[in-house]
């Protein structure tokens, strides 16, 4: 396999991380909705924590994207 092809394969593999982050972000919002529907009164107070969790899960997907971009363009 020459270098160009290996780069493309590597960038594609890095995209798996983006999919995994999708699982994580979905889990954050899913769990929030599940418990918010059980106790709607407490939901508004937890919105800050919701977005902290979302930011933490999303960052890892974005890192995977950065890795892919670095492999492709740098």
């Amino acid at each position, binding site marked *: 396999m020459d270098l160009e092809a290996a780069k493309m394969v590597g960038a594609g593999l890095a995209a798996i991380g983006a999919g995994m982050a999708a699982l994580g972000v979905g889990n954050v919002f899913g769990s929030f909705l599940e418990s918010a529907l059980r106790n709607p009164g407490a939901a508004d107070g937890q919105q*800050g924590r919701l*977005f*902290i969790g*979302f*930011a933490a899960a*999303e*960052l890892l997907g*974005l*890192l995977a*994207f*950065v890795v892919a971009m670095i492999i*492709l*363009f740098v």
Partner: protein
Amino acid sequence: MAGEAETAKVDPMYQFTVEPLLGESWNIAGYNIAYTNSALWMTITAVVLFIFMLGGMKRELVPGRWQMTVETFTGFIEDMLDANIGEAGRKYVPYIFSLFMFILFANLLGLLPVGLFGIHPFTFTSHFTVTGVLAIMSFSIVLIVGFWKHGLHFFSLFVPHGTPLPMIPILFPIELISFLVRPFSLALRLFVAMMAGHVLLKVLSGFVINGWNAGVGFGFLVGIPSFVLMIGISALEILVAGIQAYVFALLASLYINDAENLH
């Protein structure tokens, strides 16, 4: 992306090119300070933000619609700082508010469909230099406030309360690294989120253009669904623009909370 001739027609990375607008030879001490399209859109953002705030600062007893909008935003940031930092958070309202509004307006202005009139909107928050400076500013406030207020006691931030003594040499470097990585993660999140969204939109627009160029059949099969998807993604990008501005302000306030209250 490189290689085939058809895919090279729409270059999704071209939108991020920084170009000097008023001549390239503005130099100070060997550094080029040319007025670029990035600087132009920062100016536009600042002017729009200034006008927006000016319209809401009439201080009427019965607020009109405009003043109500501005007060909603200020109240939102005040509530966030109250919840995260407490009473001491009041003095950070101007900084966090400016940060939030600047990023929000920059993100939204970069999404404007002014390309229809031949003007190219430029999202300067999709550049690491810009978000990096914003993150460094926030992180400097954390460091300055932390050391000013607590002195060397600030280092107790890296040793959580009640840690057993043998765990301290292991825990300290981990906490230190997670602390030092914060400005990078803060800047990286905003920059990549904005860049990824804009690249996605341009890739889809490439599908539309190349699909119709390949023939009517491809146009209906690929072009139309891609265009519908583009409209949906544009709506999602407006949401992301808001969420990223909020997350940036939220995390900045959380980090300031660490400096103010030390756990």
